[in-house]
């Protein structure tokens, strides 16, 4: 890097950026693929057609539209007075590189080699390459100019203005989420392009958010949402409830979003144990399983061990309590066992649970036959798995589960946030930081640690009860070790100790596999690679909480001014709500 810096004189920044921006615009207008994809029925790669911009100027869409936008913005940023210009340019450059690489690689691999993206059969297409080069130029421009610190807005605004800003940002966020879920449609054999289109949109959004972050907009919004917590949370919940009314309001996405919600709630529970108290738990999914099996047994399903059908709320409470008791039992070794050894203990517990469920111990789990046909929740004559009609508006089926799970996630978030900012939350963090010192401060560390396990498990048990009714079949193999690892990955990926992080992590870990169905052979490999890269370049997680950031990002050590340390640098404005 330092040698690169010697070659790149600051004076080169502007010409490089302008060149990169113009090249990106040209790339958007070039064709990207040389021929139709015969194996998909002669289907063309979406939005790849040549020079369509000149026939129909406003029909440029998809990744080519994104490339055009990024290119124009790069030129504007290079010429206009923008704070933290070179940081912004670098972010936009990475966005261009991501869009170019993802589409080019997919087209080349699926289209039969480099010919598909360069020149073949008389057709030429260099759009993808031009896009990557443009991105690299923008990144070099950023490096040449010297990367500035994130700009900080000190503007104070009146409450109504702040509300308006927050409202607008959350609505934009809602639309972005809907757009992301819908990008490329539902993955699968019938729709081979879902993966690249989705990833490409993700690359574009990452670049755009990186740029907004550099300018200081996201930091400012997250500061505002910190100041108006209650309002932010309310609006955020409303936005989540509005999702069914957007383009993502299909049966399929309602189901997926509900699954994300269940995992997000569980991940937040795990976050208490791992993120706050610093106790590594590798068998956490067992508590979700315990909750699900308890609820299934009280649901009146034919295979249930108890022939009673309890109302859902009651069954959910019992599920949560039972899971909590098991949590306390698993947590009790923490009195004696620390660190790696505790991880092994929890791992063993997870395996014991799985094997016990597989062998139908006590006749409670149905063994390999599982507990099928758990009836859907039914309130006021409305079954939760049917579609809901309000007046003339028909909402997709699964929307009621979605709403229930939004409420569940909101509840779990409140529990987490309230505990974190209380006596017990400080005790947990103190234990994580230095257990002996915490004891010397009068904290009964044993009690506190067991309480962490108990509360985390209770929340997971609650999520499990919803899970049982929603999926209608509760089988032991839904609760394998890999699920525990995925939950842990969601927590760490999102940022330990942070709620928005856990939700984002759970969402990414569930949406990515859905979108990448056609890459199913490589799915886990890509997934592992992504985790390695994120942990290498952002060890504090995507949306870290303040403590973790200080610990892992080493911002203090690099001499960032103290005021900057206090600014929450989250990539998404919405995501800082619950800190």
């Amino acid at each position, binding site marked *: 890097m330092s040698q690169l810096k010697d070659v790149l004189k600051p004076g080169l920044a502007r010409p490089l950026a302008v060149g990169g921006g113009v090249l990106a615009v040209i790339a958007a207008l070039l064709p990207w693929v040389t021929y139709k994809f015969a194996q998909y029925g002669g289907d063309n790669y979406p939005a790849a057609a040549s020079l369509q911009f000149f026939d129909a100027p406003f029909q440029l869409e998809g990744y080519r539209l994104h490339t055009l936008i990024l290119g124009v913005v790069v030129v504007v940023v290079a010429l206009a007075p923008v704070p933290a210009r070179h940081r912004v340019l670098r972010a936009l450059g990475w966005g261009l590189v991501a869009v170019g690489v993802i589409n080019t690689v997919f087209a080349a691999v699926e289209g039969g080699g480099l010919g598909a993206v360069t020149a073949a059969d008389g057709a030429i297409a260099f759009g993808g390459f031009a896009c990557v080069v443009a991105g690299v130029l923008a990144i070099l421009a950023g490096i040449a100019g010297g990367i500035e610190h994130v700009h900080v807005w000190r503007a104070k605004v009146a409450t109504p203005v702040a509300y308006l800003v927050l409202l607008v940002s959350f609505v934009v966020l809602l639309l972005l989420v809907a757009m992301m879920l819908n990008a490329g449609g539902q993955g699968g054999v019938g729709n081979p392009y879902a993966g690249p289109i989705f990833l490409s949109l993700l690359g574009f959004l990452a670049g755009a958010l990186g740029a907004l972050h550099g300018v200081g907009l996201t930091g400012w919004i997250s500061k505002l949402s910190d100041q108006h917590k209650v309002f932010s949370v309310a609006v955020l919940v409303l936005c989540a409830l509005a999702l069914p009314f957007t383009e993502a309001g299909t049966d399929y996405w309602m189901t997926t979003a509900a699954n994300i919600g269940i995992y997000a709630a569980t991940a937040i529970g795990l976050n208490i144990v791992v993120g706050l108290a610093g106790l590594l738990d590798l068998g956490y999914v067992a508590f979700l399983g315990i909750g699900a099996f308890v609820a299934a047994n009280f649901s009146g399903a034919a295979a249930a061990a108890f022939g009673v059908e309890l109302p859902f709320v009651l069954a959910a409470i019992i599920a949560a309590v039972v899971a909590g008791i098991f949590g306390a039992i698993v947590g009790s070794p923490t009195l004696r066992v620390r660190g790696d050894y505790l991880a092994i203990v929890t791992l063993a517990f997870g395996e014991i649970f799985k094997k016990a469920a597989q062998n139908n111990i006590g006749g409670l789990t149905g063994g390999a036959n599982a507990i099928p046909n758990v009836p859907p929740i039914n309130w006021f004559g409305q079954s939760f798995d049917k579609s809901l009609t309000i007046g003339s508006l028909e909402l997709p089926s699964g929307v009621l589960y979605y709403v229930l799970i939004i409420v569940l996630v909101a509840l779990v978030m409140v529990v987490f946030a309230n505990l974190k900012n*209380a006596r017990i939350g400080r005790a947990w*963090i*103190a234990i994580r*930081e230095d257990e002996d010192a915490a004891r*010397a401060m*009068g904290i009964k560390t044993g009690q506190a640690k067991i309480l962490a396990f108990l509360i985390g498990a209770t929340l997971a048990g609650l999520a499990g009860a919803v899970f049982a009714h929603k999926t209608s079949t509760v089988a032991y193999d839904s609760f394998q070790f890999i699920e525990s690892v995925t939950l842990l990955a969601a927590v760490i990926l999102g940022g330990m100790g942070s709620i928005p992080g856990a939700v984002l992590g759970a969402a990414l870990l569930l949406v990515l596999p859905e979108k990448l169905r056609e890459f199913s052979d490589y799915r886990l490999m890509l997934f592992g690679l992504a985790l390695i890269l994120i942990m290498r370049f952002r060890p504090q997680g995507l949306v870290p909480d303040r403590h973790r950031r200080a610990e892992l990002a080493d911002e*203090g050590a690099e001499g960032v001014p103290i005021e900057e340390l206090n600014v929450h640098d989250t990539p998404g404005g919405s995501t800082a709500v619950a800190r």
Partner: protein
Amino acid sequence: MTATPVLSASNVSMVFGGLTALSEVSLQLHEGQILGLIGPNGAGKTTFFNCLTGLYTPTRGTVTLRGRTLPSDPAAVTVAGIARTFQNIRLFPSMTALENVMVGRHSRMKQGPLASLFHGPAYRKGEADARARSLELLDFVGLTGLDDELARNLPYGDQRRLEIARALATDPAVLLLDEPTAGMNPQETEAARQLIFAIRETGVAVVVIEHDTKFIFSLCDHVSVLVQGQLLVEGAPEVVRGDPRVIEAYLGKPPDEVEAEVRQYAEEAGRPSAAESTMVIPPVRERDGGSEGGNR
């Protein structure tokens, strides 16, 4: 000075396997007193400290706080009224200064998990009180305005002060300071001395382990000297300072004696003494090394 001591150790012995780290150490701390505990490396000072804070249960003998035998659990000892700082600073580095002190308030707050969960009026009052008291303590130790700073970002001297504030937040009757001036420059040491005097003014009795004898003798009302696990001498600083056993055991031989030895050695070797004009024996001021630090 009242007759009944706040803290009293009687005949405390600590045996690790075959090693007697402490034997029959007795010590009394009265209200409003600053007691210094000195001794060479390995004398058992930190072991004794650990017996006072519940980290170790003495093999023989008892420690009582206001007449009550101490429990053998550090958390319970803190609740009973003994707070401590650590030889190598042990703050919660990724928490803010204020949060660190508020952790110290933990045992004095009545806020159960349910109150924490629902953030009711009782929670808000308790939280506000703890916050106010913590800010007050930060002011007291001279960290005004640094409450929102992460502990890890504070300079060394401020971290020491923060550790004292955190210990004071537990409302102790006795404060144990384990080498409070280690690594400090003279100005910081003087500030620490003033701070300890101020703490005494608030009615807290203080025990200090230190290697800096100058600091100890100018600070304490009473000094105890531990050597090889035994209480060698105790008394007022002037008495202890002049005691030849202390000088020999702790400070080494007096400078003039050493000088005489050097001269004698030089004469025996048949060369003129290089020590005559330049020989200065600096006061011994060594860091407590791994031997004791590893006990914890």
